């Protein structure tokens, strides 16, 4: 490859010796003008890409889905004795998650408050004995095993640590579904860059779990010196 000088010389000579070669035109452009247009094009390209990447892409990636009807945690929280009244543990230690109809039926056999949402609930679901197809914001993928008992009972964490102040909310936020993966947006987090996380509940990726487990001194993995894979995977 050190023969470059020689070669280049040859080719240049050849080019000079061959008048009428097709690529003459490019040499007509003024160097300054060409560089200017090159820089402008570069900036335009850059700007378009930034807009697509930061604004258009996230908008396309997530599709907003409606919940079957609205629900106020705040209203219910005032009436019951803490989250576990509805989001309870079963006798085998598993967590029931979003309550089933039978639990709501105690109060909602008939319309109580008279909101349109409650009417929808009572007439369409309670009376038809149909479970409400809630979309679960914090639903982890199938490969994840999450034990509420381990966190709530053993590690004595409260619900808010991971779920945020959902108990104080008066209505349900829109559910955003990642159109590629089918995940809830809450797993990745609202921030598309995944960087500026302020509260634990803002994202629920593997690394978020791992950070806390590492902090708690769980180090049973031979490979990673962190918590072993099968602690959270199934």
């Amino acid at each position: 490859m050190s023969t470059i000088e020689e070669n280049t010389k040859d080719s240049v000579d050849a080019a000079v010796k061959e008048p009428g070669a097709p690529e003459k035109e490019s040499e007509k452009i003024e160097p300054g003008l060409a560089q200017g247009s090159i820089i402008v094009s570069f900036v335009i390209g850059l700007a378009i890409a930034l807009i697509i990447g930061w604004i258009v892409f996230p908008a396309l990636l997530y599709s907003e889905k409606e919940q079957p009807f609205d629900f106020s945690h705040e209203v219910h929280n005032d009436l019951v004795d803490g989250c576990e009244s509805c989001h309870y543990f079963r006798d085998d230690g598993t967590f029931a998650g979003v309550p089933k109809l039978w639990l709501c039926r105690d109060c909602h056999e008939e319309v109580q408050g008279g909101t349109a949402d409650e009417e929808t609930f009572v007439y369409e679901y309670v009376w038809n004995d149909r479970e409400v197809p809630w979309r679960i914001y914090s639903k982890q993928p199938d490969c994840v095993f999450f034990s509420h008992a381990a966190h709530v009972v053993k590690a004595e964490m409260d619900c808010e640590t991971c779920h945020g102040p959902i108990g104080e909310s008066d209505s349900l936020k829109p559910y955003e579904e990642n159109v590629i993966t089918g995940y809830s947006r809450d797993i990745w987090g609202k921030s598309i860059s995944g960087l500026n996380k302020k509260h634990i509940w803002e994202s629920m990726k593997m690394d978020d779990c791992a950070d806390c487990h590492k902090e708690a001194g769980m180090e049973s993995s031979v490979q990673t010196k962190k918590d072993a894979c099968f602690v959270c995977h199934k």
Partner: protein
Amino acid sequence: MKKGHEHKNPKKYGMVIDLDKCTGCGACMVACMAENNVPFKKDESNKLDSITWLRVYKLTNNKPYPDTEICYLPRPCMHCEGSHGHSPCVSVCPATATDYSTETGIVSQIYTRCFGCRYCMAACPYHARYFNWWDPVWPTGMEQMLSPNVSPRMRGVVEKCSFCYHRYQLAMEKAYFEEREDLEEDEYQTACTEACPAGAIVFGDLNNKGHAVYKLKSDPRAFRLLERLGTNPKVYYLSSREWVRRQGDNYLEHEETGKARQKVHH
């Protein structure tokens, strides 16, 4: 807010399989398949492309009639400890999809992490690892019987016996709920152990003197498969037949069964 996780009594789950009792009926294989959402194809007669986390081998003493003897040998994943958890497969996985837990001694396989390079299969001398060559397909209606406790695998990843780890997860969850830290022997048992009509499979913590496996592993009939390689497997076998014990490992002609030195890998 968060309570520390104090590390105590690391467990080492293992199995002792009594080949004198094993009848080769195949219940363990089926129990495993049913428990772990193992897929099945229309033709499963090619055993090199048939996912059976636990496979029952038919051993023969290779003698002609009428001195022929056969013995069945169920082979789950051995959950090799190697030296310090470096089992043959764990250290070779390039993407950390398989790991060894010092808390339970179980070799895990994470299907969503595995990208299907199959190096672990090349590393495993027991052929305990299986590749999903095909998309798993359940005939219409039969997906109803899938267990939510074990995630179904997708095409293109490796899977293997997990010692029904999900049962440990559920047992621990119950224990935590009841504010306990430890499990009773019967709280965590694998599906094959429970199903075996012969009671030939015993499962428990090899470190726990109170567990049946602790004593059984030192039975004079006990041996492990390919011990000499230094895989340090956690599945023990019992057989009163010398030829069966001898087929558990490679021996030179003059060597005595069970007396060979084990290799240690660092």
